[in-house]
């Protein structure tokens, strides 16, 4: 129990689980689900919230973010502000389908979905007793090793289930908006599931927002993705938050043979805490995976990206590029693990992480981690931490560009390696514009 974080929050969750347990029985949870939840909670009970004594949490101390008496049954949806929040989260100039969730549950009245021959969308609670779902989360979620996933598994009640039909190609992107609102400081634990069936192709853009500035939201979300044989998913996560928001995301991707998964994770300055766990299991041969990340961290914020790619079969390719800009007293963590199993011959795995520190007090902890057990592979990794080239800054200024504008240009330029990889032109421009507008003059000044 040495790693247990002793917080009253932990104790309240333990009490809550007993009540919840009653509740799940009332709503006719299958024995398998009940057993899964009990199992998950006992893991969380034993491990507690992750502490800095755990390798994966060495640089991200959760304790300060658990300090409030979070309401675990949030109430008080502010309907008026929903539409405004939706408009704010839309991407200008981009025609999309739209799936809106409020406090983790689908709001069909605010959504605009593709036809059912292409994609089916339903509340996750509809399928939580289905064996295909329970099988999937039992096999894939790493409940046993990740206390936060275990906690989510013990408690989750809803989320979305999106299934892209076999052979279908989605004609425009699906924008998924997660909105959270509560009268009091609140804790949310949504659970989501995306299945892209054989030969299908889709582009999904996810955005999350807490609507009320005055209350603090802590969200521990788990998303599972299953990319079936020969399917292709382009998955964007654009995280442009406000303070008083604390986000813990765990995304697990199960890639089947010859599938392709492209992930773009852009985190802009704003939230107090963002921890993204992105785990990819390559469960078939000849898969292709691209992970592009960009994190801009300012003020007292903490952004932590943990990625893990498991090469388990031969002839798979993965390519990862994460770049970060850390300003003020911001702190960033990057941990990129690439695991190549003994059977995974002819693996190509590349990883690159570059960081730009813009102030004396900015911090970054970067750790590339390669574990290779096969002998016929091409793998590389690189990591840099640096500052502005003063010569570049002087060059721009000597042409009449103010120091602030010059610094912004250089940050944009640094981010360009990642943003240029975004194929969707409207998304690319939106992200570039967010970078420019979110860089406050104070932050870019050293």
């Amino acid at each position, binding site marked *: 129990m040495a790693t247990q974080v002793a917080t009253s929050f932990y104790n309240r969750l333990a009490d809550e689980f007993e009540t919840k347990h009653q509740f799940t029985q009332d709503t006719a949870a299958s024995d398998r689900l009940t057993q899964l939840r009990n199992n998950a909670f006992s893991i969380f009970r034993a491990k507690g919230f992750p502490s800095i004594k755990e390798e994966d949490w060495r640089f991200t101390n959760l304790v300060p973010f658990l300090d409030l008496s979070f309401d675990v049954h949030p109430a008080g949806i502010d309907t008026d502000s929903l539409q405004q929040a939706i408009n704010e989260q839309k991407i200008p100039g981009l025609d999309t389908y739209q799936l809106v969730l409020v406090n983790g549950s689908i709001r069909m009245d605010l959504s605009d979905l593709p036809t059912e021959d292409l994609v089916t969308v339903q509340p996750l609670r509809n399928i939580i007793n289905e064996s295909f779902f329970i099988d999937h989360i039992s096999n894939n979620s790493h409940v046993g090793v990740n206390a936060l996933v275990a906690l989510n598994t013990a408690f989750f009640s809803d989320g979305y289930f999106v299934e892209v039909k076999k052979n279908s190609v989605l004609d425009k992107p699906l924008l998924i908006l997660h909105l959270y609102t509560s009268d009091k400081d609140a804790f949310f634990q949504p659970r989501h599931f995306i299945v892209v069936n054989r030969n299908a192709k889709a582009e999904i853009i996810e955005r999350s927002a807490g609507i009320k500035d005055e209350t603090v939201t802590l969200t521990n979300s788990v998303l599972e993705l299953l990319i079936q044989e020969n399917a292709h998913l382009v998955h964007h996560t654009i995280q442009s938050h406000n303070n008083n928001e604390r986000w813990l995301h765990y995304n697990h991707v199960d890639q089947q043979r010859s599938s392709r998964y492209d992930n773009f994770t852009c985190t802009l300055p704003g939230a107090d805490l963002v921890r993204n766990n992105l785990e990819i299991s390559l469960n078939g041969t000849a898969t292709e995976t691209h992970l592009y990340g960009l994190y801009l961290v300012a003020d007292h914020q903490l952004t932590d990206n943990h990625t893990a790619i498991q090469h388990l079969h031969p002839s798979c390719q993965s390519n990862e590029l994460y770049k970060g800009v850390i300003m003020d007293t911001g702190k960033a963590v990057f941990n990129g693990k690439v695991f190549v199993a003994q059977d995974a011959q002819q693996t190509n795995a590349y990883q690159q992480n570059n960081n730009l520190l813009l102030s004396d007090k900015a911090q970054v902890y970067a750790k590339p981690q390669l574990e290779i057990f096969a002998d016929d592979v091409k793998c590389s990794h690189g990591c840099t931490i640096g500052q502005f*080239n*003063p*010569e*570049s800054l*002087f*060059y*721009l*200024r*000597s*042409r*009449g*560009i*103010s*120091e602030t*504008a*010059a610094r912004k*240009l*250089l940050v*944009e*330029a*640094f*981010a*360009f*390696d990642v943003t240029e990889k975004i194929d969707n032109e409207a998304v690319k421009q939106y992200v570039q514009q967010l970078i420019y507008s979110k860089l406050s003059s104070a932050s870019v000044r050293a």
Partner: protein
Amino acid sequence: MLTIKNLHANIDGKEILKGIDLQVNAGEVHAIMGPNGSGKSSLASVLAGRENYEVTEGEVWLDGKNVLDMKPEERAREGIFLAFQYPVEIPGVSNINFLKTALSEIREYHNLPPLTAKEFLKLTKEKQQLVEFDAKLANRSLNEGFSGGEKKRNEIFQLAMLEPKLNILDETDSGLDIDALRIVSNGVNKLRAANNAFVLITHYQRLLEYIVPDVVHVLYDGKIVKSGTKELALELEERGYDWLKEETPVHASSTQ
């Protein structure tokens, strides 16, 4: 236009400029020559406002305004342009976007509205032709992957776009082949006007065959030790700098 009085400057505590006096009038071209380490590039850097130089004494005036009080960007907006000896590569910043930003900041400083997209495009095309700068290069990242000659030509293209008053060319001719030298020189000659001035810093008399200077100065050990007409450049080409060193009393071992 430019008046420099008794300018002294240090870098890392070491005195590099030891009392420079220079007067450049509108419409003139001045060449500054001198052996390696004499302070030519330092003078250019100090005028442009490079921050690792510390001015310890003296004055610099541009049309009645105190240059030394200004930040580098203010100097640029007032009309000082330094064509770099080693232009920096900045991947991810597009050449055109960079010029658009620079131009609108300069115009804003002078209370002028930004150019419309159409006006900017027209100006870009016109100046590209004037200095024979490839349109493909203009659309690439700033200097990224440019050859040495392309970088220097980009400096002249920027100069043409921003239309400064005082143009300082820091060894723009170094590393150029004959064709590139001719193109750069033609560009400069076309840009010469009654309301601007050029200061050419160079090692070689060759550049001055293409761009004929009104005055040639020799900088040695942080001071201007001789000024003359363009014939002085020819004499230097023939005789080197040693005869000047002998004529000039020097503090013990102060050259590099």
